[in-house]
């Protein structure tokens, strides 16, 4: 059976004690009588007549030595033993406490933390554990939040579909192509949400396959401008491309970059009624910066830091053709980061917004 820490501490104390006591006793046994005899001889030389009683004296001395040694060894080892036992217990107590708290945490009490100890090494261990615990608690909380948000988002279209189906079943409304189209639309919305969520979870876990190549992005930008211009009204915003005719190559995944730009442009079109939406491209140091600037409704300063968060939507009640899933920007940010870039936003209510990101130059 393996010996526990307390046993080992106690045993090591005992060993030290035995070595100490043994050396003390053996040296004393060897040296004390000899020193006594030497002393007797000195006394002899000073004139004391000790020849007759010399043997008795030596015997008496040895007896005395034995008795006191036995007593001192007994008392000493008992005291030392007791002290060592008590000290190992104190140390063990700390460790047992720590074990109990970690077990509590493992069982689900995520707020459990280790106390600071007067033993610096144990304090260091406590601090490390507490940091890890706080991080895990955060991850758990975020996971619960996402599940909560997700169920809400999924439930909305499902409720609509169920409503229609129940009314159809009860004969309260008549089946018509219009109804079927509506059902199909809500189902598509659900599909899109599930796809987006899958993409998001893959992106956040780093599983999204990114195919980085040396690419020139100008053709992509031009084709996007064409596609999106078709969506704009005559009296609506105008789509502009400000881009040097010769673009340096960047290291990027074209499809993913297109995904990000579609997201940004889509948002710009959705939230801009007049003025302009400009895609502006600039080279800076070893980075290619692409900005989508619009003269739209803008984003309130208190919302600005949350814009890239999951499920955050500017206008929750908006029911446009492809009512956003709320994770477009979150996925976009992850996609840019996975390509080695960063995305930022600036905005002013009533003036417009500027979303810009960079990709590394080849």
């Amino acid at each position, binding site marked *: 059976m393996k010996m526990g820490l307390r046993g080992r501490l106690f045993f090591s104390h005992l060993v030290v004690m035995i070595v100490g006591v043994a050396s003390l006793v053996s040296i004393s046994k060897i040296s004390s009588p000899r020193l006594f005899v030497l002393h007797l001889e000195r006394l002899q030389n000073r004139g004391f007549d000790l020849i007759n009683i010399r043997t008795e004296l030596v015997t008496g001395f040895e007896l005395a030595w034995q008795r006191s040694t036995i007593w001192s060894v007994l008392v000493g080892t008992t005291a030392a033993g007791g002290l060592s036992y008590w000290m190992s217990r104190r140390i063990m107590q700390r460790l047992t406490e720590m074990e109990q708290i970690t077990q509590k945490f493992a069982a689900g009490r995520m707020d459990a933390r280790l106390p600071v100890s007067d033993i610096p090494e144990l304090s260091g261990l406590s601090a490390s554990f507490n940091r890890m615990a706080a991080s895990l608690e955060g991850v758990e909380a975020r996971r619960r939040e996402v599940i909560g948000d997700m169920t809400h988002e999924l439930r909305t279209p499902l409720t609509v579909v169920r409503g229609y189906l129940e009314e159809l079943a009860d004969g309260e409304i008549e089946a018509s192509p219009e109804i079927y*189209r509506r059902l199909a*639309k809500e189902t598509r919305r659900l599909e899109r949400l599930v796809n987006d969520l899958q993409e998001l979870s893959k992106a956040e876990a780093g599983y999204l396959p990114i195919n980085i190549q040396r690419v020139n992005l100008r053709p992509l930008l031009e084709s996007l401008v064409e596609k999106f211009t078709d969506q704009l009204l005559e009296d609506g915003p105008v789509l502009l491309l400000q881009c040097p005719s010769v673009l340096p190559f960047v290291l990027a995944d074209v499809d993913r970059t297109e995904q990000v730009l579609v997201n940004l442009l889509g*948002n710009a079109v959705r939230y801009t009624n007049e003025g302009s939406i400009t895609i502006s491209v600039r080279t800076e140091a070893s980075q290619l910066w692409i900005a989508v600037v619009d003269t739209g409704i803008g984003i309130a300063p208190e919302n600005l830091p949350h814009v890239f968060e999951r499920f955050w939507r500017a206008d929750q009640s908006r029911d446009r053709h492809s009512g956003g899933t709320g994770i477009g920007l979150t996925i976009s940010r992850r996609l840019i980061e996975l390509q080695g870039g960063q995305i930022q936003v600036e905005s002013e209510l009533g003036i417009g917004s500027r979303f810009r990101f960079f990709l590394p130059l080849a």
Partner: protein
Amino acid sequence: MDRTQLIDKLWGDNFFGDERVVDTHVARLRKKIEPDPANPTFIKTVVGVGYKFEDPLVA
């Protein structure tokens, strides 16, 4: 087809603009294929619904 269907068919999920943009495109189409865009024979407007493509020879 109503505007919603047209948008679905044309852009699918990637449409972010105002539905009325369909009207602009229909107007452009009419200019191109109608002999008299003001009195369309191919692309008819169905009031309250949307647009209909008709082949005058069959109708």
